[in-house]
């Protein structure tokens, strides 16, 4: 907090939990957000996305909803569509744009069409491998994208199910693991370089990009353990890149935010490759807000308070109605 007086007297419902694989992360995000909002005077309700939610919203209508749900219904536009149905203002992207950003292959195609760099990829459902023969399809994948290869579920976050596959022999087992998370696998050319996240917030007249956060995972892989074990990853903010690259990262994040029709806040994950190109990995409509998450790190580095930022976004949501 940068001042003692409450900055907001609003009542906000923080939605966290849900039934996705990322429930645990969402609960952590929700707790952090609820605490940050309370610290700036906001009255907070903490609700799960379950059968009681609509009843809660009708019986005790908040001024706005802040969505700290990750994965599934929290990011694919489903909860947003329900809130739109009920006429409840909410912080974040509207349902149709959520749906676009949530599906990684769709978002990547849109980014690539607009001339933004994203690692070359192919997204295929299990049925394609089954019907055309896994070996042949995998061979074609490796031929086109090379090794190592990044495999991830086509939907979802927190690096769940994501893995770097070094050899063709390891691919079938990695495919089986990945398909346990989703029915479609996104295979990407692996890009070596500096891993960076750039958050975009729209708390003033125009959206602005916060300082890029560089991710330096001790084990070399920014997987679930590296993400959520305090101290397992060092974050550098701003990233240890030259000023021109930092600016380019911020411009790219803003361009992706606008292109995908995102609202209020988003986070772009990218790799700056050895040639200085910004390769967008994905864009998130519901960035993590946990103690080790990237958006809060950027907010801190920008000298902003998370509660104040969200309180400002709540005002925008209320104005939109």
């Amino acid at each position, binding site marked *: 907090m940068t001042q003692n007086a409450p900055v907001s007297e609003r009542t906000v419902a923080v939605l966290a939990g849900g*039934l996705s694989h990322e429930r645990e992360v969402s609960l952590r995000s929700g707790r952090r957000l609820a605490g940050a909002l309370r610290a700036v005077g906001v009255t907070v309700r903490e609700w799960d996305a379950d059968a009681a939610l609509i009843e809660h919203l009708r019986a005790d209508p908040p001024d706005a909803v802040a969505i700290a749900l990750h994965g599934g219904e929290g990011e694919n536009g489903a909860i947003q569509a329900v809130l739109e149905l009920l006429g409840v203002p909410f912080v974040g992207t509207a349902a149709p744009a959520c749906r676009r950003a949530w599906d990684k292959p769709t978002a990547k195609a849109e980014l690539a069409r607009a001339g933004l760099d994203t690692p070359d990829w192919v997204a295929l459902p299990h049925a394609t491998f089954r019907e055309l023969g896994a070996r042949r399809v995998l061979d074609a994948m490796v031929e086109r994208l090379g090794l190592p290869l990044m495999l991830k579920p086509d939907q979802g976050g927190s690096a769940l199910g994501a893995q770097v596959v070094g050899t063709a022999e390891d691919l079938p087992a990695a495919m089986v693991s990945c398909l346990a998370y989703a029915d479609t696998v996104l295979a990407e050319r692996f890009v070596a370089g500096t891993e960076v996240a750039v958050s975009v917030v729209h708390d003033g007249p125009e959206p602005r990009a916060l300082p890029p956060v560089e991710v330096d995972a001790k084990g070399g892989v920014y997987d679930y353990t590296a993400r*959520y074990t305090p101290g397992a990853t060092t974050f550098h903010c701003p990233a240890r890149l030259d000023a021109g690259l930092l600016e380019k990262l911020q411009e790219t994040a803003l361009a992706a935010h606008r292109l995908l029709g995102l609202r209020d806040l988003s986070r772009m994950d990218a790799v700056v490759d050895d040639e200085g190109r910004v390769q967008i990995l994905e864009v998130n409509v519901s960035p993590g807000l946990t103690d080790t998450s990237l958006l809060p790190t950027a907010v801190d580095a920008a000298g902003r308070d998370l509660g104040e930022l969200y309180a400002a976004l709540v005002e925008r949501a209320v104005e939109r109605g």
Partner: protein
Amino acid sequence: MPVPSAADPERRLPVPGGGAHPAVPPAERFAARTAGMTASEIRALFAVASRPEVVSLAGGMPNLAALPLDALSVEVADLVAREGQVALQYGSAQGVPALREQICEVMRLEGVNADPNDVVVTVGSQMALDLVTRIYCDPGDVVLAEGPSYVGALGSFAAYQARVVHVAMDADGLIPEALRDALRTLGAQGITPKFLYTIPNFHNPAGVTLAVERRSEVLEICAEYGVAVIEDNPYGLLGFSGRVYPALRSMDPGVVYLGSFSKTFASGLRVGWALVPPAVRDRLVLAAESATLCPPSFNQMLVSRYLEGHDWRSQIKTFTEVYRDRRDALLSALETYLPEGCSWNVPDGGFYVWLTVPEGVDTKAMLPRAVTARVAYASGTGFYADGLGSRQLRLSYCYPTPERITEGVRRLAAVLEAELDVMRTFGSPVRSASPPPAVGRGPQTPSPDTA
């Protein structure tokens, strides 16, 4: 190479920090023994298991619905009214004397003749396990445990940086010859394990019981090699046939015996105990004192009143009847729904069935699919310290109703079918690297409050 920006060095934060949010200390500041105390993808998946939409066959929460809560609430009120000044005060590190005498009575059911002076009350038997490891093991020491073994014990061993060597079991529990082989192999390397950790009755997670005729043989082998025996027995009185097996401690007063009221009364009270030889007792009491000063007086006195004023033997019988019905529901559903290539044991007590799935299926890798299908289980790798167990999983029947158990197995069967379908596509891939050991991957099983 990235070039550091000259712009605004004040804003360069190597770690999250600033404002009201405290900075994250780097991992190097923590002790090496915390290497395995990390966030875990598998543990995170269990967060969903607590939702009512999910049938959880993962956790090990006892079913307390059968407890006489009205009578207990009167007991609690009376305890505060009559003995509040004692119950709310510090007590002895060894535990309340009256309770220690009653604990000896409980153990008599299993043929143990014990002196209350050799009983140390602990905060659940988990604390006893921690303390025993603390007083026996230096970093790098070897301990023997059945393969698979109780995950909480593996956690304690890892926390003290002990190395676990597993000993195989069959339907009759620990295999004496495998124990002898393990000791011989270690002996050839100049290693004498600090102890054998064993769960002889209704094993967690394997569900098996050590055959009576093997018990003295196991003790003899350990005596021959100079290895202490830690007998962990939380389920001994929960046999479905009413049979109570003789404790290892009843055959050898040198055995360290761990007991608990978590399964026979109330897990939330956290009252367990260790019965130890006199030569071990004083160290254990001092270790307990340094850990907690004393176990909670209030909880001990409540357990003592319960044992004194309630028909606890009938209560245990009621519990076992409930668990037997649930076991039957689980076994019948496994028989009905599971695909070919699965096998499992038939437990005669306790909480668990240990299931082996068709070859090639990795139960840890399959867990996200199960969670999507709204069913949860504990994958087998969490019960081994050496990465084995990927083809096994533990199913708990203690908490869900028989109807929910049946539904859970129906869902699990569909999950297995879908996984087998994917495996057929990719030609039952052999995973090239063996799974990494537990250290550094975080917990692989549910937290204690997961039903």
